[in-house]
């Protein structure tokens, strides 16, 4: 058996309000690709940040090459030979490949200036060792995303990394680029590098993974040779948890009346021929992995992104939606997953955010805003949605995440929206506030609003929705009755396994 390179023993890490890691175990051998899987919030990223020196563990030991280590910062970890490649590339687009690889530690001549020749020669040698056909003198932004990712790998290895952590490395890559990446990963493994591979795409693991470790809710669940475990077992262990009283009792009853009909929506390269209906009083979930096109679908319906073809009908009438303003006029609202970037004007006051989508409603003649009417409207929603704020004119930046989410909801309720699209409504919100948001969504549906709820948290989908759409790579792979489905079935469709099965049968 190969030498053990890294041993994580009983490592714990807490943040205010969350125990992100609770005595977890992990082991990495020289020359293996070890997948770490788990749902959002399972603690994968926290452990990686501990290994790469960004966080320090509260308890537990990390043994690296036979010695206990305590990295104080990411530089120490890198110097010791632990490289990490984040989901987002950390490269400078306007520098050359070689300049990116050696950034911050450029070789110098004896006069002290940068030795470009040595840098380019070294970079060329390094890239050749990885079997990469990349010119080190080319500017980075002239490379494809996958080649840029290779450069990132080369950069990590140039520091003589013995462990390489890859966090969702394929999320931005196309099929052929993924193949290219896997070849490089195989090459690294053969040279004795230990690779920790984190991915939501369970279907791709079979191509590269030797062993797999599963985390759930900050706990270590199991480690297994990849060949000795089935996909069903992996998924079972990942979701495992019982649905306790995390969700309020169902209040809404979908009527048979079609509120929204989406027909053959296509956006080249992103959404492929998606059709579905939304009924009055229904909560319709949209599930899928990262990059499956869930938010893109919502933004297309809302007119925030252009569509190539397809049509949208409300109450049987075809809508002409070319901008968010059009969609809003037809009673459609979109609550973005990025509240602060896309939902709120955080430097502005609560009342101004509540009325933002419907200022004319609180205006008098000559487009003059009535402060009284505005405060009155705000007061109504602050009471109705139980927004906790010291004043109606508080800066929204100073409200908590749950309250900020309620402000966004208030904004759309004040606009009399009949179709609300919630994109990750509970992201970054603590458990108590989540329940309030769920109650609110249920209440809206009961009042006849059509709710579309996009979520990465399957329990949330199962606990809240009437039906679920599952997307995989921009395609609708399943429309399921929530009551008759399971996390396993949803994950199967989300991972594209149902497509593969269909293809196998043909």
């Amino acid at each position, binding site marked *: 058996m190969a030498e053990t390179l890294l041993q994580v023993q009983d490592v714990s890490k807490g943040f205010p309000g969350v125990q992100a890691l609770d005595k977890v175990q992990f082991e990495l051998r020289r020359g293996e690709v070890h997948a770490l899987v788990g749902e959002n919030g399972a603690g994968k990223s926290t452990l990686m940040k501990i290994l790469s020196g960004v966080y320090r563990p509260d308890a537990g030991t990390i043994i690296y090459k036979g010695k206990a280590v305590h990295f104080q910062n990411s530089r120490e970890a890198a110097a010791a030979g632990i490289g990490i490649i984040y989901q987002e590339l950390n490269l400078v687009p306007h520098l050359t490949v070689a300049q990116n690889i050696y950034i911050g530690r450029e070789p110098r001549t004896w006069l002290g200036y940068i030795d470009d020749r040595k840098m380019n020669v070294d970079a060329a040698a390094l890239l050749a060792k990885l079997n990469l056909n990349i010119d080190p003198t080319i500017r980075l932004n002239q490379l494809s995303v996958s080649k840029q990712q290779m450069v990132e790998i080369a950069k990590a290895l140039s520091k003589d990394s013995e462990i390489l952590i890859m966090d969702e490395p394929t999320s931005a890559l196309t099929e052929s680029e993924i193949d290219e990446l896997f070849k490089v990963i195989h090459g690294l493994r053969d040279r004795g590098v230990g690779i920790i591979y984190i991915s939501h795409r369970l279907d791709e693991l079979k191509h590269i993974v030797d062993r797999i470790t599963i985390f759930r809710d900050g706990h270590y669940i199991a480690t297994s040779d990849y060949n000795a475990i089935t996909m069903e077992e992996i998924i079972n262990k990942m979701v495992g948890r019982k649905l306790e009283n995390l969700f309020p009792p169902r209040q809404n009853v979908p009527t048979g009346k079609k509120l929204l009909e989406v027909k053959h929506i296509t956006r080249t390269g992103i959404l492929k021929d998606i059709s579905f209906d939304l009924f009055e009083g229904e909560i319709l979930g949209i599930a899928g992995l990262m990059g499956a096109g869930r938010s893109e679908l919502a933004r297309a319906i*809302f007119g*925030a992104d252009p569509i190539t073809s397809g049509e949208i009908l409300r109450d049987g009438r075809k809508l002409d939606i070319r*901008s*968010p*303003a059009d969609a*809003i*006029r037809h009673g459609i609202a*979109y609550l*973005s997953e990025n509240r602060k*970037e*896309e*939902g*709120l*004007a*955080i*430097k*502005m*006051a609560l*009342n*101004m955010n509540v009325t*933002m*989508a419907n*200022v*004319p409603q609180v*205006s008098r003649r*000559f*487009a*003059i*805003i009535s402060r009284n009417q505005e405060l009155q409207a705000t007061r109504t929603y602050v009471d109705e949605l139980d927004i906790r704020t010291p004043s109606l*004119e*508080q*800066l929204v*930046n*100073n409200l908590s995440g749950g309250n900020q989410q309620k402000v966004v909801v208030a*904004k759309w309720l004040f*606009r009399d929206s009949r179709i609300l699209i919630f994109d990750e409504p509970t992201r970054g919100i603590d458990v108590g506030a989540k329940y309030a948001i769920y109650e609110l969504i249920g209440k809206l549906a009961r009042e006849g609003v059509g709710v579309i709820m996009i979520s990465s948290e399957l329990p949330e989908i199962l606990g809240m929705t009437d039906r679920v759409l599952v997307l995989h790579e921009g395609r609708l792979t399943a429309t399921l009755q929530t009551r008759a489905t399971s996390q396993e079935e949803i994950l199967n469709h989300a991972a594209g396994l149902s497509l593969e099965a269909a293809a196998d049968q043909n």
Partner: protein
Amino acid sequence: MSNELQMVAPPAFKGGLPAGLGTKKLSMDKLMIFVAFVALFIIFSLTARNFFTARNVLTLALQTSTITIMGIGVTFTIITGGIDLSIGSIVALSGTLAVMAANAGAPIWLSMVLGLLSGVLCGLLNGVIITGLKLPPFIATLGMMMVARGVVLTITNAMSKPAPEAFGHLGNDTLFRFSRQFPGIAYPVFIMIITAIVFGFFLRKTRMGRYTYAIGSNEEASRLSGIKVTRVKLVAYMICGFCAALTGIILASRMVTSQPNGGISYELNAIAASVIGGTSLMGGIGTVGGAVIGSFIIGVLGVGLTMQGASYFVQQIVIGLVVIASVAVDQIRYKKKLVQ
């Protein structure tokens, strides 16, 4: 004596005091700037003889009126998250065009209206370039600065021309002239006051004003809330162009000549005034009242230092330091507020 002071400080900032953005804390910031202004005023009154006289205060108001008007205009563009560097060139172009129209026989009022329209048109072009071509406002208005300047120099051959005598009334006549000690309030001061009231009201009270803040605070969220971002930006740049043109006409009228070489780098003073008054170059924050106070801080420093014998060069140093200090204070205060 305090009467004059109240006339100098236009009522608009009173309107600006209770929370441009609707929070009590922000209005505290404004209060601080106002206190700084009063402190400066008192210091100069005590140290410079003749500073606190009716005559001097009126001169101060007249001199500061143009920078105040430009500062109000540029505040709109800065709140949207943009900037306007073409103000100085628009000042020269609009004033010159108005003088040329008057010399060509157009009635005075019509020639001035034409001058104003030329400024609004320049602002509209700025806005179209920014929203249509999606250029950074800095680049778009830098280009406009050069183009407008080039146009005015070309059509005039860079030569100043006298205007008809009647053209000078707007810039030089006064109201309420009682005596030598109280030489009356010049029309430009009234124009400044009206500009501040009208645009202060517009920014604080109307929908378009609200949207100006909203897109500066978060353009994407505004778009997703159905706000017509392009239209709001066009209006902001047109207001800025209008204010610049108004300044150009006042200056041409005061000189009773066209000034194709005038107005150079005025945009920088306008931006400085706006920023001293608490406008954030990041967008989303700023008020007309702040711009007015900022302008008067610059004005008081200029006049006060001159009376104490400081050279124009020294004044530049002091004003530069005030700009840096006021923004630094804002930053620190703003950070504190967000952390809480």
